[in-house]
């Protein structure tokens, strides 16, 4: 009885009695959710265009951030480091398309998944070898990102907003808007959608699959870089981020593999949900629930809606 009260009554009492704290928790979760959504966005871009489940997206985030900081450490000014990192991600996209994807066309999805896990190992090894395996701090100020925080007095309490978090949310919204325009208004964007719809039909009207794949991987690389900068600015940059990036997989399940709005809403659901659960229900379970909350949420969710929030309905014929 006491346990039931602890689970079903007390957390809500806490929430209502300290609304400023609740707002703070939701805000923290929202920002984390934006970052999950960005990683998931990179997955969705690639999955839509090439049917590859890109396990390496998480490591690409870390790799991009590491490269940016590493190049800056070698003496390049921030703007040059940024440009060089973008160039590096472009080079990476072309290499992956040439060396890996082109050879694995039409293979089973598990094999493509394995190839990207192999890619994860390579990127991790190269990144650690070139830029060092230690923890680094992101060059937030050099990039012109705001630091500091503002307070907001509400309900007799104070809610603290880190400026970098606000910037992250704004940049994420801008990036999604840019992608939406890019997809619907430009020639390449339309070609991307054509490829996503039907590979063979796209080929037959003269769209180059190889080119499109390279562009998509490059776009994911840029998304990864932005995610890496934002994430790195909130905590430090290290290869341990990879485990956190795995949570984007749970986000994908919630949103569906092929839906960009799904990735965003799924990301926010996971981000806010896990923070609320950890703060209000976590102590009952002994804490540390953030490690599994996203996956268990996804698992329970899937039992009721196997195609995800916005996924296409699966119809099978024998």
């Amino acid at each position, binding site marked *: 009885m006491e346990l039931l009260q602890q689970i079903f009554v007390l957390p809500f009492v806490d929430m209502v009695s300290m609304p400023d704290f609740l707002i703070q928790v939701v805000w923290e979760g929202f920002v984390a959710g934006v970052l999950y959504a960005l990683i998931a966005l990179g997955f969705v871009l690639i999955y839509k265009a090439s049917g590859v489940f890109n396990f390496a997206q998480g490591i690409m985030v870390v790799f991009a951030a590491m490269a940016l900081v590493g190049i800056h450490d070698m003496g390049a000014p921030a703007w040059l480091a940024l440009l060089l990192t973008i160039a590096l991600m472009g080079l990476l996209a072309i290499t992956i398309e040439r060396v890996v994807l082109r050879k694995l066309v039409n293979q089973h999805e598990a094999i493509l998944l*394995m190839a990207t*896990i192999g890619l994860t190992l390579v990127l991790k090894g190269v990144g650690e070898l070139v830029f060092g395996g230690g923890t680094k701090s992101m060059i937030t100020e050099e990039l012109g990102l705001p630091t500091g925080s503002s307070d907001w007095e509400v309900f007799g309490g104070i809610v603290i907003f880190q400026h970098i978090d606000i910037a992250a949310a704004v940049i994420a919204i801008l990036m999604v808007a840019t992608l939406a325009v890019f997809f619907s208004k430009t020639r390449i964007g339309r070609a991307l959608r054509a490829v996503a719809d039907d590979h063979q039909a796209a080929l037959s009207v003269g769209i180059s699959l190889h080119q499109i794949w390279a562009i998509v991987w490059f776009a994911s690389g840029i998304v990864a870089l932005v995610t890496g900068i934002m994430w790195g600015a909130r905590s430090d940059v290290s290869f341990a981020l990879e485990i956190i990036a*795995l949570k984007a*997989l749970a986000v994908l399940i919630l949103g569906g593999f092929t839906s960009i709005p799904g990735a965003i809403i799924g990301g926010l659901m996971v981000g806010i949900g896990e923070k609320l659960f950890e703060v209000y229900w976590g102590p009952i379970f002994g804490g540390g629930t953030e490690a*599994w909350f996203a996956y*268990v949420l996804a698992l329970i969710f*899937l*039992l009721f809606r196997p195609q*995800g929030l916005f996924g296409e309905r699966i119809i*099978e014929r024998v």
Partner: protein
Amino acid sequence: MFYREAGQYKTSYAADQALLPILQDRIGLLMILVAVFVLIPLIATDFFLSAIMIPFLVFALAAIGLNVLTGYAGQLSLGSGAFMGVGAYACYKLTTLFPDVNIIVHILLSGFFAAIAGMVFGLPSLRIKGLYLAITTLAAQFFLEWCFIRIPWLYNFNDSGAIEVPGRKLLGISITGPLATPTVRYLVILTIVAVMTLLAANVLRGRIGRSWMMIRDMDIAAELMGIRPLYAKLSAFAFSSYYCGVAGALLVFCWLGSAEVEAFDINHSFLILFMVIIGGMGSLLGCFLGAAFIWVLPIVIRAVPSALGIDMLAATTEHISNIVIGILIIFFLIVEPHGLARLWQIAKEKLRTWPFPYATT
């Protein structure tokens, strides 16, 4: 050359149904068995046994478990590391609660706990499949890992949070704990692995195994033909997790001697998946080839710089070995997506048609 079935006639149904119908296969297997049971314990050093052979066998057993699920029943899983953990912790609890019962019994029993965990986390497979399922198995991985840390009862409220293997004896010889010699532990593992491989081979070609393969090839068609997906999928999860659980128990009791939760983390799940895919999905031989490849390769790579006399930091060799393994995985997937086992099959075909390679068989 010498490998052909010409002239080997079968005169009974039993002979026709034999596990190894070709004489050369039987001789080959016998030679391998003699080598691993007699030759290796006699000549191998302790290092070779405890750093190469024992882990290789443990991972081969886990790979068989995952291969049953992924290769034969077509359900992709990323949670095998956690199921190994369930086996290990179950075995630890069992042997500390009932110290008088033989440890081998405990090791074999602990697999059942892993099987139950596997069935619970296999439930979503009834509604979802493919990559979606793979990600839900991550829920098993992270949730179980969390349990291993947060439930102190599992490691007997030990301050270090690790499970320490107590010394246990069989017929007066220590087989676990610090007193057991590598040779004894090797033989124990080898026996269990050999028996369980034989069991798996027979289950897989029997009624259950064939229902798994039907589910893999097309589940709706299989259902129309009278296979119950509920039973087929959950039994595959249970069987697979049983093998993983026993492998996990062996990993702690006969190899590491003590283990923390890191021994069952997601990287080990990936490691086992690598073994299955590199070795060959849907092949028992592939499990052994894959385990040997993935386990031995990093050891070789780490030994290369010192053998060449190059002075290199341990971290650097670690990174280089990561890169090389990653490249090799991609290379193998491109060259032979069906794994090392397929290479062996191709070699057998070549031997059969030698010296007339263009002859149609």
